[in-house]
């Protein structure tokens, strides 16, 4: 199972130096596999950029979106990325405010995922625009009545807060890196020096850090809830069957926590393995994260039942048409696969302790995350084919929506983009917060003393 790291053979109570070195070690060498992975991601992003250039020149017609399916995979991607980004606030804010200290080592993973995801959410919305060259009109001629404007401001605000919430707890760690990573290339040393903001771990600095973190942890909550509620309103404010629903806000937020928790479990598995962090991201963390995932999935299932059963009971004209399509029609295979493999089966499986071990939970989380993306497609697309008037006098292919290669390549590029952001962050910053880990292990005293003595050494 967990292979002990060679330099820190002590199974119990490692010292601060051991914790520090364990968490810093992966930053020392850029492995061949890592280089290859980064190049692979860049190749996908370049392919996506070429596909996007093609779309810019030819027009959005290179996608399969048409007048009766005017929103497609890009909007589904947007909703998906916004959903994933919400995990930052769940782990770093909600769990912290509830004093769930077990999640502390995961907070940075969650924040990095949040940053990657919210960046790609912003990119997805620009990719979907017919005239991205006129983006400035949103500021110049913005109308506050439009939910797009609310989304525009709340996405940007969340992006800024996510960066701050990632950065604040990083500062003491960057100071450690500044002092310890003296063998790294000059750009990296400069980066640490600049970003550590002259952190010396004085009492005043700690006081400021704690206070500002509390401010940000509380501030991010309303913004996080707003961002996904407003995203759901992009659909709910239209009087269309399948969209015009009063529970869309909480429904989307519950779904977001499901997608984000699954993403964190996947990332936990990858970094634990790659960075040999078995002592820091333990089976207990997997156990707890999977319990959290089950909790959010049960909540999401509850909203799903509400969302489908209530209109399904009355079976009104267009609701009936829409639901027949989902339950029994063309969308039925995808719908049931998504609901069963992405929601019901994971809930049942994760009730068993064995399934909450790292490897089984990785596989389950991959299904949950795929299901989360498919679910966004199923929310965005089928509704549009049930307008009030019949669809006539349009080309035959207007009657269905099958994403083109261009759309898939661009979508893959946003996925690669999010992963590249996370990969690069993990390349230069420790994935588990060093000082928080030390604090939770009750060895922060050593840390402080060591820090202050360091300053004197440097000044001398």
């Amino acid at each position, binding site marked *: 199972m967990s292979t002990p790291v060679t330099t820190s053979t002590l199974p119990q109570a490692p010292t601060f130096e051991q914790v520090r070195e364990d968490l810093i070690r992966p930053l020392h060498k850029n492995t061949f596999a890592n280089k290859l992975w980064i190049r692979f991601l860049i190749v996908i992003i370049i392919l996506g950029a070429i596909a996007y250039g093609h779309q810019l020149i*030819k027009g959005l017609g290179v996608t399969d979106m048409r007048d009766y399916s*005017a929103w497609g995979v890009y909007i589904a991607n947007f909703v998906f990325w916004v959903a994933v980004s919400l995990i930052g606030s769940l782990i770093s804010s909600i769990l912290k405010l509830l004093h769930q200290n077990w999640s502390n080592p995961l907070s940075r993973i969650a924040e990095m995922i949040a940053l990657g995801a919210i960046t790609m959410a912003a990119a997805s919305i620009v990719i979907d*625009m017919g*005239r991205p060259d006129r983006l400035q009109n949103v500021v110049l001629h913005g*109308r506050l009545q439009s939910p797009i404007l609310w989304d525009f401001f709340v996405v*940007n605000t969340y992006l800024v807060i996510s960066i701050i919430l990632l950065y604040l707890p990083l500062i003491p760690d960057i100071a450690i890196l500044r002092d310890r990573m003296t063998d790294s290339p000059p750009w990296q040393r400069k980066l640490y020096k600049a970003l550590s903001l*002259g*952190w010396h771990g004085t009492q005043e*600095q700690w006081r400021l850090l704690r206070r500002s973190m509390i401010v940000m942890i509380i501030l991010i909550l309303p913004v996080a809830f707003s961002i996904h509620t407003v995203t759901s309103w992009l659909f709910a404010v239209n009087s269309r069957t399948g969209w015009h629903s009063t529970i869309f806000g909480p429904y989307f937020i519950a779904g977001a926590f499901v997608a984000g928790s699954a993403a964190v479990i996947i990332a936990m598995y990858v970094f634990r393995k790659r960075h040999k962090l078995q002592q820091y991201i333990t089976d207990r963390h997997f156990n707890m994260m999977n319990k959290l995932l089950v909790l959010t999935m049960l909540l999401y299932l509850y909203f799903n039942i509400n969302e489908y059963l209530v209109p399904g009971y009355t079976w009104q004209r267009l609701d009936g048409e829409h639901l027949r399509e989902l339950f029994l029609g063309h969308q039925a295979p995808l719908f049931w696969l998504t609901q069963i493999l992405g929601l019901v089966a994971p809930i049942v499986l994760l009730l068993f302790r064995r399934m909450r071990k790292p490897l089984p939970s990785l596989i389950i989380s991959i299904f949950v995350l795929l299901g989360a993306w498919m679910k966004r497609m199923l929310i965005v697309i089928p509704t549009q084919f049930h307008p009030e008037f019949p669809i006539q006098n349009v080309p035959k292919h207007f009657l269905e929506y099958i994403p083109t290669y261009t759309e898939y390549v661009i979508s893959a590029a946003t996925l690669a983009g999010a992963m590249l952001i996370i990969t690069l962050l993990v390349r230069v910053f420790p994935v588990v917060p060093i000082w928080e880990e030390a604090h939770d292990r009750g060895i922060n005293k050593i840390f402080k003393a060591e820090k202050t003595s360091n300053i004197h050494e440097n000044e001398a």
Partner: protein
Amino acid sequence: MKDQQHNPTNDSRRNFLKQSALLGAGVVAGAGVLASCSNQPAGSGEKIKLLTATGELVEVDPSQIKRVRKEKLTELQERGREGLTGHHWTWVIDLAKCKNARKCMDACVGAHELKPYQSHINVLQMQDSKSGAPYYMPTPCFHCDNPPCTKVCPVNATFKRSDGIVLIDNLRCIGCRFCIAACPYSARRFQWFEPDYTEEQKNRVYDVELNVPQKKGTITKCLMSADRLRIGKLPYCVSACPNGVYWFGDKLEDTVTNGTTHETVKFSELIRDNAGYTYFEDLGTKPQVYYLPPKNRTSPYVPVDKFQEKYEEKRG
């Protein structure tokens, strides 16, 4: 613990924390600040005489004068955003008369330089029940008095004019397609590709009231032929109809004129005597296009896809 003495790095850190909190708040407040920007000269104690829009002469302090921010628009854009004063256009479509000639669609496609499947007016073959005879129903934009499409537009590219027409400004549209999602009547089309124009055609001055030249990546929709109304003519589709389907007129004058026979009747009487109605009143959109029921249906049943070939997309 003795390095509590004044430390410059400590200060910069405090500033940073302050700034980062401010930055978060600043982004939230950004919208409000942008909206409230205006030029205000300082007060001097003198009063300035001004004539209000209602014809009253008033005195105000110079500091109270706010310059009206004028958007940079071309003359055609500016003119197109103002409605024709003293009118509220309305439309009555007599379903009993429509014989599926589709001349309205051709006229629309010609005038607005569209592909056949993009026609702003769409003649639908309707069959309300299995036993009932089919009928043909032309559907333009309903120019709702409470339009869902203009509400959701983030940039005021689609707007409701004082004369009731819902227009679009294709130099403003960002192509988000929220209005397509919002419209319950499927009245909106999108330019998914670059329209087939020569360089010369493409560079014409854009006319909001005709929405020509069409632009890639923007919305196009029925404009009630606002350019024709400006010169006192009936819309393109209304004039093109050979069967007397369309009555077009002005609610404020309570008159509508038939596009084929040029007969003019009272709008309210036409609606009352023929049981006129609008579509989906329960949505609260207050559509301004009225229908007369398809009585005495004589049109033969034609398979819906009989004209399909004409509307196929020719992909290059």
